[in-house]
């Protein structure tokens, strides 16, 4: 026994979590990681500062790799496992939460409902072009007065001859102003229905929300629908209740449980490198006990969060993942990522507030991630209800 020698753990994968991944998962992960390092990381600080995104070029590049709707089967989608989708989200968000949001929205919030609830014709019409990145989609559920309580939505649609007329306003819609198509959820006499609305339909407009201090490398918009007329075959036939939008959110939240850890990992690695290079009192600051404590807390949080996400991924691939377990992942990983980002910022000192380093950008982004796709508080209540059997929402 004594002649077994152990190598020092990899500071970037302390528990050797890579050993839990298949070769194919590692190849898929590395394809995204390489792309992000080459094309996103060197540029995203500028995009963030300027509040602009080269969305068409990104959509095309993501389409070429196969990222868009990657875990869906058929219709030009790659058909990977859910775990692989999660790992891709992790790598994308290690670049920027806005970049991951772009892919989440396209794949989980727009392509997924069309794939899951759409007619064959709707799938053929939209999914292949969306998978290639030729068509960008957005998802309209949240409204100015309807956030955590989406069932209170005011947007409504009514039949008018063979068509539908949709009226209402959606808010905080990622990709809204750049989208070619919107999946809009509206109240009808037949329950909550999903409508596929081409954004050039008369009565539809999507002004961009400016002056954001978070997710600046992401387009966020308001959707205004004034007597927007769509034919009956633009309605998703497969669902007529809140189950429709909620199942989409469940998909996206799953990706966020992975993604947030990507942002946290980027912050930890940035702080680790910085703490070794930065000298004070004639020593690297990494040699000080307070700094080491912070580094270890961050490393442990990132590894623990990765394990959690991976566990959820395996359960999802086994068809056993419950929405409450997704809440667990989103709740715990995002709050911990935010804590890691703040700790990393403190290690970088004044440099930590600049966009020369990724840390502050991630920290500001994670404030959004903490709130969107089910706030931290709502996920608490979901799990609270699950363990007590008592509803604390109302």
């Amino acid at each position, binding site marked *: 026994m004594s002649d077994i020698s152990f190598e020092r753990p990899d500071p970037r994968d302390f528990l050797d979590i890579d050993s839990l991944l298949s070769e194919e998962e590692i*190849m898929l992960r590395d*394809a995204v990681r390489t792309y992000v390092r080459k094309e996103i990381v060197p540029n995203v600080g500028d995009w963030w500062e300027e509040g602009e995104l080269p969305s068409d070029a990104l959509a095309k590049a993501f389409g070429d790799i*196969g990222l868009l709707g990657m875990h869906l089967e058929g219709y030009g989608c*790659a058909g990977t496992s859910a775990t*692989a989708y999660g790992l891709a989200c992790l790598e994308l968000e290690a670049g920027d939460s806005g970049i991951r949001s772009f892919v989440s929205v396209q794949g989980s919030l727009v392509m997924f409902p069309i794939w899951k609830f759409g007619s064959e014709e709707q799938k053929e019409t939209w999914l292949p072009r969306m998978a290639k990145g030729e068509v960008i989609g957005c998802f309209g559920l949240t409204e100015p007065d309807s956030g955590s309580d989406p069932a209170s939505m005011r947007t409504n649609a009514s039949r008018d001859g063979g068509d539908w007329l949709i009226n209402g306003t959606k808010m905080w819609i990622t990709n809204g102003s750049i989208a070619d198509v919107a999946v809009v959820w509206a109240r009808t006499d037949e329950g909550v229905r999903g409508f596929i609305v081409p954004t050039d339909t008369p009565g539809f407009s999507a002004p961009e929300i400016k002056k954001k201090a978070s997710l600046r490398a992401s387009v966020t918009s308001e959707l205004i629908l004034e007597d927007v007329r769509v034919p009956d075959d633009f309605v998703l036939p497969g669902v007529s209740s809140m189950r429709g939008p909620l199942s989409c959110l469940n998909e996206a939240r799953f990706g966020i449980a992975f993604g947030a850890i990507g942002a946290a990992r980027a912050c930890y690695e940035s702080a680790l490198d910085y703490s070794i290079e930065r000298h004070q009192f004639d020593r690297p600051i990494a040699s000080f006990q307070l700094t080491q404590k912070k580094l270890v807390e961050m490393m442990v949080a990132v590894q623990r969060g990765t394990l959690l996400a991976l566990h959820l991924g395996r359960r999802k691939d086994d068809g056993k993942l419950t929405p409450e377990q997704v809440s667990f992942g989103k709740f715990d990983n995002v709050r911990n990522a935010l804590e890691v980002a703040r700790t990393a910022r403190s290690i970088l000192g004044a440099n930590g507030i600049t966009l020369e380093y990724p840390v502050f950008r991630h920290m500001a982004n994670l404030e959004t991630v903490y709130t969107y796709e089910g706030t931290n508080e709502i996920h608490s209540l979901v799990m609270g209800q699950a363990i007590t059997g008592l509803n604390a929402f109302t």
Partner: protein
Amino acid sequence: MNVIVCVKQIPDPATPYRLEEGTNWLIRPEEQILDDTDRYGVEMGLQLVEPSGGTVTVVSMGPAGSGQGIRQALAMGADDAILIEDTSLRGSDALTTARVLAAAVGRREFGLVIAGTESTDGYSGVVPQMLAEILDVPALTYATKVEVDEGSVTIHRQTVAGYDVVTSSLPAVVSVTAGVVEPRYPTFKGIMDAKKKSIETLSMGDLGAERAPEQLVLSIVDAAERTAGRKIEDDGDAHEAIVALLAERKVI
């Protein structure tokens, strides 16, 4: 036209390399990756066959291990692979490698064989030329640009001063430099499809190839440590010192 690309699985250069005591052979881990310089060859092959619809076959010699490096080439889009694995090939030198690759390549119809100029773990830099000699086809080496026309191949051959334009008939062997083309990112579809593609594994017996006379590595010496550079302080005449230094090195 069918293209064959010679590729090598090597230990990840990011990990420390270890040599076997006595033989000084590189200890090859189970997990090896595609030599980064081979990505250029694979990409070149894919670009050359895409217009005409030929196939790209990768050929590799060495311990299969997990085969990850081969699948990385397949994930880029190569159609199939031939892998020659035989314990008797441990410690092979460049000539044995060229003989084995030639025997494997000779089993297929091909218009062009592409190889990197040298591997990242061995650096002998002579295998492509030897391979061409054994196959009895022209060798066009150090290509920075490759074009194939009806029955001929034309390359830009990198030289110290610039490049030569070299043309030959097909079939031929071309060695390509890093940067000849920009290797593509493997797509998810490519990665998913890679596991379904054929990897033909052959032994020395299957090929009927023979080892070259043994080459021994007698000793390994660490490279000399770099010495500190010379610093020229500028008191107004630094430019003269720099010009003199460059002239001394015959750079100018």
